[in-house]
């Protein structure tokens, strides 16, 4: 009954009119464009933008990878320079190394080392750090300052040699302050030094 009526409508004189057919087709095309084509176009635009961003990100990552490989190769060929940097600012602030160094400089300049204090030792692990056993370069690092106070006695020339040894030291040692005082027996030199290590950042 219904198909009969539809067939009747389709076969009716009005529906056979090409103008009506064209108008209906255009109306349908308009609706199709508005409700299906335009949202698809917008979605496609969003997808393309996302794809372009991802492509840029991928290119940047690939460029980073190339740069990283170049720097790693450069690092591997610069082992002598790395040794120098490692000596200047070591990766460990182990105080015994500093004490051995200062003691050697005092001895080499014929000064008597009367006292040596190293401050701020509890902040960093000096030996047996299990976190670094797996990857010695893992973790965040920052420059750590180690304060050293030394009391030496001798003459001015010996002390000058001591200062020169500190200046020429492979490890960076800065003189923060010094007090020279003389008594009956010898001249006392109280010197405050700063040395550094590129240590694991404990504040993080």
């Amino acid at each position, binding site marked *: 009954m219904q198909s009969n009526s539809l067939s009747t409508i389709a076969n009716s004189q009005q529906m056979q009119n*090409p103008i009506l057919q064209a108008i209906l*087709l255009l109306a349908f095309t308009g609706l199709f464009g508005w409700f299906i*084509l335009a949202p698809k176009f917008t979605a496609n635009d969003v997808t393309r933008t996302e794809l372009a961003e*991802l492509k840029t990100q991928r290119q940047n990552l690939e460029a980073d990878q190339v740069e990283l490989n170049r720097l790693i190769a450069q*690092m591997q060929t610069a082992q002598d320079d790395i040794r120098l940097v490692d000596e200047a600012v070591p990766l460990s602030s182990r105080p015994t190394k500093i004490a051995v160094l200062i003691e050697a400089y005092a001895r080499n300049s014929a000064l008597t080392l009367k006292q040596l204090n190293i401050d701020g030792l509890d902040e960093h692990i000096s030996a047996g750090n299990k976190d670094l056993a797996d990857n010695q370069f893992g973790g965040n690092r920052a*420059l750590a300052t180690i304060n050293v106070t030394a009391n030496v006695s001798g003459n001015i020339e010996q002390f000058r040699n001591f200062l020169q040894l500190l200046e020429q030291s492979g490890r960076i040692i800065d003189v*923060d302050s*010094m007090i020279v005082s003389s008594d009956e027996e010898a001249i006392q030199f109280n010197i405050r030094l700063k040395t550094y290590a590129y240590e694991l950042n404990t504040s993080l």
Partner: protein
Amino acid sequence: MAEINLLETQGRLNAVKEQGKRWLLRIATLIFVVALGVYGYLFFSDRSSQKQIRENRAVILQAQSDLENNRQRSELITRQGQLKSANKLLGEHLFWSGLLPELARVTLTSAQYSSIETGTEGDMFVTVTVPTYTDAEKFLQVFDLPEYNQQFSNVRVLALSQTQKDNVLQTSMRLQLILNPNLLRRQIQ
């Protein structure tokens, strides 16, 4: 005869109208087909873009994971930080071994120093001992000469006293001086 002509004209006009209607339908159909074509293009383009997005995401994740797990990268970052710190420290490094000879040159070893206190701030405190007040005056006069006050200047006498030690009179002065920071700076080789 005239009626026959009118009928012919009417027939032609109807034929043109009919043809125009059909062309209009054809154009409408063409627009519809083009719209369908555009939709098809967008559909396949979107699918292709989605596929590329998935591929790119996988590559990016893999590359990020490779970068993060690269142990040599950790070493590189550490070495870079180490080198940067070392360069900064070397740029600020002071050379103290030149201080004492310069102080001796300026004061021409005319005095005995019983104490010298100095730091990186630029202030310097010295306690000197000379035999008489006249020697103390001469000691201070040296700092008025341009040749000698380049490294040590603005000398303030904080204390001046005379005491007898082992039957000898000694004049002591506690001085505050400004130390030229350039004296301690030297070009790193």
